[in-house]
């Protein structure tokens, strides 16, 4: 039988891991998407709305 402290520790550890993992996934996803946008812009691909704004 585990001590009560172990159950408390496991609960807090699982919460930290889950929320930390979620934060890491979102941060990494954001970096990857901004890198892709940067690469497309470097290739000269423009969003249609930007092209319209520039020509106006």
């Amino acid at each position, binding site marked *: 039988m585990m001590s009560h402290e172990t*159950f*408390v520790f*496991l*609960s807090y550890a699982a*919460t930290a891991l889950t929320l930390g993992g979620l934060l890491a996934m*979102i941060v990494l*996803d954001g970096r990857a998407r901004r890198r892709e946008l940067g690469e497309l812009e470097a*290739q000269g*691909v423009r969003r249609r709305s930007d092209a319209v704004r520039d020509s106006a």
Partner: protein
Amino acid sequence: MSDTTISQGWFTSLANPTRFLALSGRILPYLAAAAVLSLAIGLYMSFAAPEDYQQGVTVRIMFIHVPAAWLAMMCYSVMAISSIGTLVWRHPLADVSAKTAAPIGAAFTFLSLLTGSLWGRPMWGTWWVWDARLTSVFVLFLMYLGLMALHRAMDDPVRAARPAAVLTLVGFINIPIIKFSVDWWNTLHQPASVIRLDGPTIHPSMLYPLLVMAIAYTLIFFTLHLMAMRNEIWRRRVQTMRRQAAQAIGRGA
């Protein structure tokens, strides 16, 4: 061209993803700082709180279990409101909001189930029972997973938006069932002790840490949700730009 932007209100202007990106970029650092600060205060209060005369030290699990369960339901409510935005006003960011909230809601639901189980084992003598409260929260978890799968089932996110919005609204029936399950059925899970008509029945020494942790969890949710919404807008931009680039090549050939 006639100018149609004059009558735009503040909320309508948010429908413009570029403006949303600029505004959310300004708000995010403050929101994240508030989340970290309230979490630090909440954790300190949770461990400074006295042990319960019946639950002993395991009462500390309640300070992360109850806010996770509240957020699991609040996140679904945010998705339901966003779904109305998709179906009624066709707000372009409503679907982005609904889609990106689902994984966050699933995480909070998972945590409420897991921490509840880790509390139930020493206090109830069992990891799990199929009572109405536990079962309805488990159904909520499955609904989050189903909606995540549906949002990803189609290549074009705009095509997935409407069926996902309809399904989200149908599934909202589960939220009052979760809330009132402890009153309608004879559950092992205890009835509400904070949000009651006659006021909370918890001693302030435990109520205040719980409320601060609930505020912290809410701020964490909105921080993560805003970040995920920005990612989704960028993802859709990349998709559009790649398609445009492919079409330009097609025309040039």
